[in-house]
């Protein structure tokens, strides 16, 4: 008979503690919220329990004598390309508990990353490249519906032209990068403050996610996109008017087709106040918006939100990248959305069933190129802006996304990495040792909003500079000239079908 769980020793990580360097200062004990490190009273020294380590590296980062090293556990199962260790471990866990496998952060599975299979162009000889350090470079981006044509009236006396066409509301971005929707509740208030400040400072936007907006952040409203999801947490007239745009969250790349679920453990007083739900009760977002069963119903909600904002805010609709994404995007454009956000399957999450995260959806690169193409083919590309999200890792990815047809991108995981996240993927426990995906008062203090805001602003600036450099190298002085300009991309090492879907030529052609 088994007297201990079969998987007790199949843990993922080993904590290496160099006994010569360790000074028993207990920093690791205090830092580890999973209690992997502990003070052994009898032996009068710091010890550790490998089974509790989640691989977040917090102890290693803060160890004053560099005595700690977190490694993957070297023990191997018999090599089997079908039955890889992850499947064995998951089956053991599910056999013990009967539970649905829950995962945090984006999918780690080995599906092709097309960003890495696309290369950018640069100018040589015939058209001069531009040096952005000395010449003007335009990254300014406007999100919202653009008119098909412009009408002007000319004053006969003065000869001055005046715009007759009434423009719809636009979001003005200094850089085409925005902080993705991560709800207050999933991540803590310090980081919401940091995103709000960084977005304001760098002239871009952050998205509240579906957990409402704390009153103290209303002052950053000009740089805020407020989200409305099926649970409608913290959604009311003031909230809808507080932001510069409203986003309807239909789907999320990490978990297409299912709703959200903020566990009661993460709902403290401030989260409760913002979401307007009781402390400790689960906040469940149903899988669908139950008032949206068709494009016509979506239109109804889009216009309800436009009415609520008195037509001052553009309305975005966020969907997960799934098989028929292009047709769906076309429907969304026709339903009156000003912006379509497409979240690819590598997008992050605070919690998602692992099977859905790892098996449902399609990569953003393929979805984006198809959506852009479809909207162009139908002659309605100008009716909407397209924002791409889900696994954007660097400015190279951003610029490739724009060349594939995106107007701007959202960065979520990269935002969190900028403030220390190591993608250990235990966001749903509420114990994030980096003070990110937690509302625990002690842990969230690990994020100083001033420092976090600075880091986020730095990241946006750095990527902005890099984008300018790459644009200049291509001989372009405006991001607008790159948008949907797939001639600036070449594929490498991918099939004809993939090239066809991406709408690009192979390198060398």
């Amino acid at each position, binding site marked *: 008979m088994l007297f201990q769980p079969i998987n007790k020793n199949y843990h993922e990580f080993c904590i290496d503690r160099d006994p010569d360097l360790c000074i028993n200062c207990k920093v690791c004990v205090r830092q580890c919220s999973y209690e992997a490190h502990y003070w052994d009273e009898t032996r009068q020294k710091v010890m550790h329990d490998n089974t509790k380590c989640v691989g977040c590296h917090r102890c290693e980062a803060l160890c004053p004598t560099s005595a700690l090293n977190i490694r993957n556990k070297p023990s191997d199962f018999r090599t089997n390309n079908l039955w890889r260790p992850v499947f064995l471990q998951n089956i053991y*866990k599910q056999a013990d508990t009967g*539970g649905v496998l829950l995962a945090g952060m984006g999918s780690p599975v080995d599906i092709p990353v097309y960003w890495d299979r696309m290369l950018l162009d640069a100018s040589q000889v015939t058209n001069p490249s531009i040096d952005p350090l000395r010449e003007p470079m335009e990254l300014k981006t406007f999100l919202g519906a653009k008119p098909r044509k412009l009408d002007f009236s000319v004053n006969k006396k003065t000869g001055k032209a005046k715009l007759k066409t009434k423009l719809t509301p636009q979001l003005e971005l200094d850089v085409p990068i925005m902080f993705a929707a991560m709800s207050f509740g999933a991540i803590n208030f310090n980081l919401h403050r940091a995103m709000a400040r960084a977005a304001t400072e760098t002239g871009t936007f952050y998205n509240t996610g579906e957990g409402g907006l704390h009153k103290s952040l209303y002052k950053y409203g000009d740089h805020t996109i407020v989200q409305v999801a099926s*649970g409608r947490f913290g959604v009311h007239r003031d909230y809808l008017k507080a932001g510069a745009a409203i986003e309807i969250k239909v789907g999320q790349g990490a978990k297409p087709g299912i709703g959200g679920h903020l566990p009661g453990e993460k709902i403290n007083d401030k989260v409760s106040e913002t979401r307007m739900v009781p402390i400790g*009760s*689960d906040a469940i977002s149903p899988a669908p918006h139950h008032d949206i069963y068709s494009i016509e119903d979506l239109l109804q909600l889009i216009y*309800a939100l436009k*009415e609520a*904002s008195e037509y001052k805010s553009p309305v975005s609709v966020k969907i997960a990248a799934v098989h028929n994404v292009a047709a769906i995007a076309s429907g969304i454009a026709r339903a009156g959305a000003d912006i379509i956000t497409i979240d690819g399957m590598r997008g992050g999450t605070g919690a998602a069933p692992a099977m859905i995260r790892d098996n449902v959806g399609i990569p953003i690169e393929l979805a984006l190129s198809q959506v852009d193409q479809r909207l162009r083919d139908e002659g309605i590309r100008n009716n909407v802006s397209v924002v791409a999200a889900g696994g954007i890792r660097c400015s190279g990815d951003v610029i490739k996304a724009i060349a594939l047809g995106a107007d701007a991108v959202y960065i979520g995981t990269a935002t969190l990495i900028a403030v220390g996240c190591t993608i250990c993927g235990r966001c749903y426990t509420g114990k994030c040792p980096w003070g990110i995906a937690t509302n625990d008062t002690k842990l969230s203090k690990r994020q100083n909003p001033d420092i976090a805001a600075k880091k986020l602003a730095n990241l946006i600036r750095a990527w902005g500079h890099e984008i300018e450099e790459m644009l200049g190298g291509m001989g372009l002085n405006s991001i607008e000239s790159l948008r949907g300009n797939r001639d600036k991309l070449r594929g490498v090492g991918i099939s004809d079908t993939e090239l066809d879907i991406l709408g690009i030529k192979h390198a060398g052609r």
Partner: protein
Amino acid sequence: MAAKRKKKTLVAGRTYYKQFNEEIRALAEQGVTDFTIKECNGQRYIATALEGDLTFDIYGVPGQDLGAFMRGPKIRIHNNAQDGVGNTMDNGRVIIEGLAGDVIGYAMRGGEIFIKGDVGYRVGIHMKAYLDHQPKIVIGGKAGDFLGEYMAGGIILLLGMFSGKPDAPIAGRSLGTGMHGGVIYVRGSVPEDQLGPGLTATPVDSDDLKVIEALVKDYAKELKLDSKEIMSENFVKIRPFSHRPYGNLYVPC
């Protein structure tokens, strides 16, 4: 001292909803408090996102999402209402003297919706309560499927009395499915197999009766009904079996 009231009668007629609602907003801005709307022909979003002590007396049938996101106004519809009444509303009161469509009071957080007749599918889904916000829906007739699905707070009272569907059960299937807060009261009884998984209907106690009585009194007064007759029958209640129905579903991977 009560604020000064200012009345205005509008004819909706064939005016497009966007212009019509703009006009209402502008008038409200100018201090009009009591609106009478004649010949309403399905104009959408009437009173959507409006705030404050306003009243609307609506003749004809208003369109979808009446009073969505609103906070405070009191609306009386002398006829039927369409879908989405009181979508995510914060406060106020909607009185419907006829029937109402689907998804009434979705995610509403406060205020009351009183319907005299039958309602469609998915009414009162994801209603939620917060501190002194307690949303209430009273349905005089019968309800379609999924009444109170995902309900997180507030009160739904289903009477089944003024129905045009004599053969239908008082509520459709999956009543209260996934509810994790709030309470649904039903006059008379409800067939067990209409309830969502894990839910049971139990008799009300004296505290419940006080709540029901107060609500019925209010409802009967607004709709000129006999509250004694409504209270002449027993009631049952449906409460969630857990505030965290999915708390033990998962294992970390």
